[in-house]
């Protein structure tokens, strides 16, 4: 196949790229570079101070008295991202496959599965906060009626972490399902029919046909879900657990749901507004995100099956 350019003149392509580049520069590249610059300054938001301190902020987060809390938050961030992304994408794929089947009311199911994505993080957080309130929440009302138990969902460290992960997964389900539903339209039914004639059961067809055929979408969704769980969960966590509760044992240096994005906000805009320290942690968060993404492209990229490639 010979390469046929869509645009005859490269200038036309460049012109069309300008809007995207302008938006990316204004809202992504420029702030990212500013964060890196800010991380080398001692800067306080409320005092308006700014003095160059080199790597002092990084020394503080890696080796200073605040280091244990920072390490704990970093590990929690990675754990949180993996738990939100893995089960989140898997559940979405199963639900999308079920909802894509030609069944009565299929359209209704599909809409109901997608709508959580339309909620703002604050509303999603509030919904979970009410549901998991230990005294008056619907979850504990059901549990106490059935089993006579009332778990302390929001102040038991392990349970609070699970609730925060579940809320983050639920919030993003709709996004994942939309993409899977679209991808499922492109899976030729002939493949499934052929397998069925050969005697493959529903589960075998799911793992042997649906999962591989959806792998490009899965690859994309793993990436977007990782980005979501690193950067976009502040509102949800802030409302739901406010970053708490402080854990026990080795996890007692900060709240167990304090992921790095929560800590960055707390240090920069809360407390005494240490913007330099917050920026340094933001740079580390960006680095973690880049490393995880590179790892994903290295490892996951190979197992993606592109139709016709």
């Amino acid at each position, binding site marked *: 196949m010979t390469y046929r350019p869509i645009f005859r003149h490269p200038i036309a392509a460049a012109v069309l790229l300008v*809007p995207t580049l302008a938006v990316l*520069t204004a809202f992504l590249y420029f702030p990212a570079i500013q964060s890196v610059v800010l991380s080398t300054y001692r800067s306080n*938001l*409320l005092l308006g101070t700014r003095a160059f301190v080199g790597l002092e902020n990084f020394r503080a987060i890696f080796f200073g008295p605040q280091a244990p809390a920072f390490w704990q938050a970093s590990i929690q961030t990675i754990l949180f991202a993996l738990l939100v992304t893995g089960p989140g994408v898997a559940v979405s794929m199963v639900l999308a496959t079920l909802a894509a089947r030609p069944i009565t009311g299929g359209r209704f199911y599909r809409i109901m599965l997608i709508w959580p994505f339309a909620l703002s993080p604050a509303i999603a957080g509030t919904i979970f906060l009410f549901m998991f309130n230990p005294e008056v929440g619907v979850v504990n009302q059901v549990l106490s009626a059935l089993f006579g138990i009332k778990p302390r969902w929001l102040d038991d460290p392990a349970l609070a972490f699970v609730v925060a992960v579940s809320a983050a997964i639920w919030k993003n389900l709709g996004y994942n399902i939309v993409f899977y539903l679209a991808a499922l339209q492109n899976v030729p039914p002939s493949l499934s029919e052929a397998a069925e004639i050969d005697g493959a059961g529903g589960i075998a067809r799911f793992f042997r046909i649906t999962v591989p055929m959806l792998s490009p979408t899965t690859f994309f969704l793993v990436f977007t879900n990782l980005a979501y769980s690193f950067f976009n969960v502040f509102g949800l966590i802030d409302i739901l657990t406010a970053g708490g*509760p402080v854990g026990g044992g080795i996890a007692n240096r900060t709240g167990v749901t304090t992921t790095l994005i929560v800590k960055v906000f707390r240090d920069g805009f809360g407390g005494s507004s240490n913007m330099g320290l917050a920026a340094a942690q933001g740079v580390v968060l960006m680095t973690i995100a880049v490393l995880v993404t590179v790892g994903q492209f290295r490892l996951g990229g190979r197992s993606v099956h592109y139709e016709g490639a």
Partner: protein
Amino acid sequence: MYKPRTLVTAVLILAALAPLAVSASGQAETTTDGPTEIQFWHAFSDAPRSGWIEDRAAEWNAANPDFRVVVERKGSYRETLQAAVLAARQGDAPHLVQLFEVGSQLAVDSGIFKPVGEVGGIPADDYIEPVLNYYTIDDQIYSIPFNSSSPILYYNRDKMAQAGLDPDSPPETFSEVIAMLEQARDAGVDGARIGFNLHSWFFEQWMAEQNAPLVNNSNGRAARATEVNLTSDAAYTIVNWIDELNRRGLYTYTGRLEDWSGSDAIFQQGEAMFHITSTADLGNISSAVEGSFELGTGLLPIPDGVERNGVVIGGASVWLLDGHPTRELEAARDFVLFMTNTENMVSWHKLTGYYPVRNSSVDALEAEGWFDEDPNAYTAFDQLLNTVPNPASAGALMGSFLDTRTIIEEAIQKVLQGTDVQAAMEEAKVLADDRLREYNANL
């Protein structure tokens, strides 16, 4: 030829550049005709309190046709301070901002405020001394006291009686709290516990009651504070008591930090015999428990064997922002003095339970027999008026006060989860000192 794409491109580029354009032209313009506007930002989210402020503004505006006070709510105290700082940097500052007491050092250091002492001052003789002491920094009265409160003991008189205790003698010391709760538990009283929310404010109050400054350099008032006294004997006395309460099963809270309403609910539902919270909640709690049990109030219980040194006032005051014409600042000051005058502070106190910050208001309330009608309201005054004026009761000044609060609360939460008191407090001191050092390095 007309190309829609070009238009879309142009719009997108403009959209991307818009923030730059706005910040370039963001200078506020002053209106030349009509009354001069005086902007007042406050932090009350509830209708009764914000409505009360708006009513006072309307009254003052009617009497002062040259000016118009515009009242605006800007979120929490913290958000109000941030908004004020950012507005001031952009040359668009309000004239008046209501700020919480722990933000005082931050506010002074931010350099955007003008001490009220430089704008005609306030009638200092008429302000309750401990209140005035808090807002006097470097011998200068910085802000105008407005809503002030302190913590008191709330107790369930029915449970006291049921336990065979005298409902007229609430506990006054830490050991009496434990003894009475154990007696109540042995008598089979439900909720034989004390429930105050996990808040650093109470820790700060118990430090003051022991005449122990929270930070060095006379609580940051003789010179800038450099150390937080979290491993002093006074500090250990407080946390050891909370630890002992918890170990004996006599303490309860919701599990969340700073959960004021959660702990109020525990007390109101009869799940705790004793409760500690702000005087400003007296109105709300009294009406919530009406019909379910009889409410009593007492002085804040203090550590055994110490002379009661008094409480640190909490709450907020009103600050004047620099960078406005003197004429406008004087008008702004006049408005706040009107809002906090004798009669207005009487009505503010009756509405909310906050202290009327003026001596003349206290006299007026006494003269009309208000305290005979409501002895619970008097508890708070008793405690405040008997406060010994010294650095410990004037309250701590430190730029990293908000960080320190979180650190203290997390340390106590760890103790409740079984961490050794000394280990938790030593770690807290290292963290709090580090944040304070980092803050001071800005200056």
